């Protein structure tokens, strides 16, 4: 449904078009971001079906709330990531997924697929690899705390209670990890702005 008139548009321009009721712009946003958002949702939910529903909800949210998006607050991909993550974590909290986790992991399908926009996809993959590399460079105890905050939706207090680490130590490790990441990912962040 997306066509050449939307393929070259910036993410912010597409969201503006969606706010004006342009379905083609939404379709283009879906093509660009659905795969990474689905990866994020699966990471949080460990369930393919739930993850697909969350991604659908995210894009419906985009359709209904595109007018409230402000490019001065965040990039489009950060906005989408936050919405997807929030919905996924809401679903985790409202349902018991523990029993389904193991069975769902057996049915996971492979990653990625070829897209017509090969150039943008390659850039996205390269950026994602760099981010994962920098995450790997962070000391294990700091990385684990970030993962608990990012992908399990735990507050710092909950992390402290769950791990037995003092709250102050949790905060310190979080700050150190974020500082390292922000410095290491300077170029990647510039690409988003």
């Amino acid at each position, binding site marked *: *449904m997306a066509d050449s008139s939307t393929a070259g548009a910036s993410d912010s321009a597409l969201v503006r078009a969606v706010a*004006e009721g342009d379905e083609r712009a939404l379709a283009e946003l879906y093509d660009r971001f*659905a795969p990474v958002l689905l990866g994020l949702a699966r990471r949080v939910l460990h369930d393919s079906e739930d993850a697909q529903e969350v991604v659908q909800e995210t894009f419906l949210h985009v*359709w209904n709330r595109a007018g409230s998006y402000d490019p001065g*607050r965040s990039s489009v991909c950060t906005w989408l990531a936050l919405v997807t993550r929030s919905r996924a974590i809401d679903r985790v909290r409202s349902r018991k997924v523990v029993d389904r986790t193991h069975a769902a992991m057996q049915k996971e399908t492979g990653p990625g697929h070829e897209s017509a926009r090969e150039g943008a996809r390659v850039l996205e993959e390269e950026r994602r690899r760099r981010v994962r590399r920098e995450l790997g460079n962070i000391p294990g105890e700091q990385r684990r705390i970030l993962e608990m905050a990012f992908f399990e939706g735990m507050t710092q207090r909950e992390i402290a209670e769950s791990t037995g680490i003092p709250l102050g130590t949790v905060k310190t490790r979080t700050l150190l990890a*974020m500082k390292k990441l922000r410095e290491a990912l300077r170029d990647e962040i510039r690409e988003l702005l």
Partner: protein
Amino acid sequence: MTEPKDREERAILEALAVLEADDPDEALSRLAREEAAGGEDAEEILRRLCLETVGLVALSEEPVAPPAGAKDRLMAAIAAEREARGDDPHRPAAVVPFGARDDEPGAARRAEPERASVGGAPGAVPRPARRRWLSALAAGLLAATLGLSGWLAAELHEARAALERLEQEHTRLADRLERQNDVIQRVGASAGLLSAVSRSGVELCPLRPVGDEPPVPGAFAVLYMPPDSKEWYLVASNMEAAPGGVYAVWLNTPDGPVPAGVLQGGPEASLRFVPPRLEEHGGMLSIAVTLEPAPGLEEPSGPVVLFGDDRMSVS
């Protein structure tokens, strides 16, 4: 709770607070409101950088292809929602002509008496009635055309107004993004300088005005020579704009002065430069800033504005 030590820690905590919020849109709006209430640009940029870091980490997982039909189901759901709201884009615009409407009560009864009073053969419309009927039809079509034209003109006007609003908004956002990018670059440059000059083992050389009547009496500068760094930093204060010329920087060696660049005037000026291989010139004896008529000279010719020869090391 320990208070954040610096801006960066505050920015990180605010970005993480968005993660912990139930509604990320509301959390982002709240951040924007706080910024609009009077935060500094540097803090705003740091907060944005930390927020984008959060976004990058969240999207670092392997992408997964949506299943076949997922996108079509989404677009179908949206089309259904539009139809339910009554703004189906495929529905043609309704044209309502002025004058009597067929669904008005009594419209049929009003038509009948007119036909009956004319008389004539049943089923045949007499000439005068036909003329009146044709006139009514022409009037109706004319009214419909005028109505449609008016409606289209109103729609066009509204579309133009909406386009103008969007263009203004786009310009505003583009300006804001440009300002933010400018601040990011300046913050990045400042961060680079700070990182270099705060390194352990950095050497310093202060520069001061010389002579009884120095050209810029209140000026002061420091040359920072970080260890193991290819670049040196000259940071100056109170350098008024060079009158009719430029401030040239020279590294004085036993072989003579070696040019190092041009320092812009201003309350806070800095120069980042790669020093020449000073060992080839016998090492650096001192550093000087002179007022020259033009940049690019091979030897100093103007008065000395600043001079320094006292190197010290900071461990």
